[in-house]
């Protein structure tokens, strides 16, 4: 089955684990009577990708966009409950552990977060 994850329009490998976290960014504070109040600043999502193992060629497709390019922000397209959605995201750390070398390098434990701008 073809991956439904794209970065700047480029399809990349379907992850082993895909996690969406949703946040309301607020200034929640307590009034003088201790009631909680707040201004909503924004709604933001965080997308966590994890690959138990991934071939170098597949990993490079991802790294070309989020690591090799000098751009800080990318357009992520993904399917959520049968609805295509997009988000402008930036990335955090991108750890990867070497699993196998040779003609087809394989990496394991690759994970990264794409955080909504």
């Amino acid at each position, binding site marked *: 089955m073809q991956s439904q994850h794209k970065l700047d329009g480029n399809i990349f490998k379907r992850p082993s684990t895909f996690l969406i976290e949703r946040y309301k*960014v*607020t*200034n929640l*504070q307590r*009034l*003088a*009577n201790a*009631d*909680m*109040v*707040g*201004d*909503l*600043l*924004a709604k933001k999502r965080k997308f966590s990708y994890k690959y138990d193992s991934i071939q170098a060629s597949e990993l490079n497709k991802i790294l070309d966009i989020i690591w090799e390019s000098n751009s800080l922000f990318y357009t992520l397209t993904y399917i959520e409950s049968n609805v295509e959605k997009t988000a402008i995201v930036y990335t955090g750390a991108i750890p990867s552990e070497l699993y196998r070398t040779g003609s087809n390098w394989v990496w394991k434990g690759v994970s990264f977060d794409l955080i909504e701008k």
Partner: protein
Amino acid sequence: MSIPTTDAEYNKASRYLQQKVIIYFPGITPVVVTRDDYLISTGTLEEAHATSGSIPFGKVSSNELNIKLSSPNGLFAPSNKLSPYYSKMIRGVKIELYTRPVPDPIEYDWDPMGVYYVTTWSAQVTGITADITANDKLYDVFKLSQIVYPIKREISYHDFYSEVFAALGITAEIDVLLTNKLRYAYIMQDNKAFLSELGVGALSDCYCKHNGNIVVNYLYKQRVLRATITDGDQIIDATINQTIDMSYDGSEVTCNLPQESAEQNVLSVKNFSVSASATETTTMLLSSTPLIRMSKVATTGAPQVHVINVNATPSEVTFEVQNPNASPYGINIDFFGTIINTYKVTYKDEGVKLLSIDNKYMQSFLYASMAKDYLHKYVSSELPVLSLNVRGNPKWELGDKLRIVSERYHLDFTGILISNKSTYDGSFSSALKLIDATLLEGVI
């Protein structure tokens, strides 16, 4: 179709607010900036009167707006020739600030938060942000040349203010209650000093409203309660702010009663040099002021040398000296006229250190006694000014009467809003200062 906001929208436990900044760059369509593109934060400081100094009214100051913008690729860097706004990020550019709840689904009108004019615009081409400081219309009034105004008799404060702002080409909202009359109205100072002194003399504050208009607000009047705010909707914390030196133990107000003097020498010029067959024009400050009228000019020391075309203001005289002779001459010139002399009457408490006013525009016993009574109550009050940190409401204006009810701070305080410092960085909040309304409303 949008609808007006109400206080309830800004008192909700859960708010989702947005601001927009409209920048009127010269020669192009106004640029609207929101947090969806370049707006990072804004801050406004509004004051009904300058809080420097001890007198709690009258002294003018201009409101200030600070804006931080994202400036990708130097978009808002004044020195960036590649910016579409290059050469337009200059002093005097008009900026309007608005706030409203984010449409969800009701779309609300934008609430204006002032009209400002850029005073500084700073950003590095390589920087990622730009900082803009802007001030309201009064800032430029302060910078304009001193108003030339002929001395007038028996004119109301209202009409004096109206004529002054008309002379500046500005429409202002002058409080209709300012019917008390000045015996003599005249101007001897630069605009800021003059408006400050007139504000104290007229028992008024002069500032800009959110619609950008200058308003002159008479202090001693009953006001309609604008809003009540409580621990449960707005109040974050409150502090007692004793803004004046606690050592004042009374007040002193001096009334200046102006009268026209007898004719006197108002300027004596010795050995004024005029070239041969020449006419010299000059302007000199008078030694005695303010001049009501020039009555005569006397010259000695040179035959056939005459002073012509004499034009005098309350503070200076412009004249021409004509010398038809074939050789240069030096002459002595004496100008005579009548000036305003003031007779002082002081209302004062018994005390060691008195909060004092001695003001040339306080020309009636009524205003002097009212001012003295107000200052006396002000220095005697345990809580003349209340400071509050609140969630904020962009609809509040300086001069609004707000009631603060707080069980936590044991407060039931009704005050007049004299300072509002608001910030927006996605969330909105305000620091307020209110002066006890009973100090003002009890002396009418």
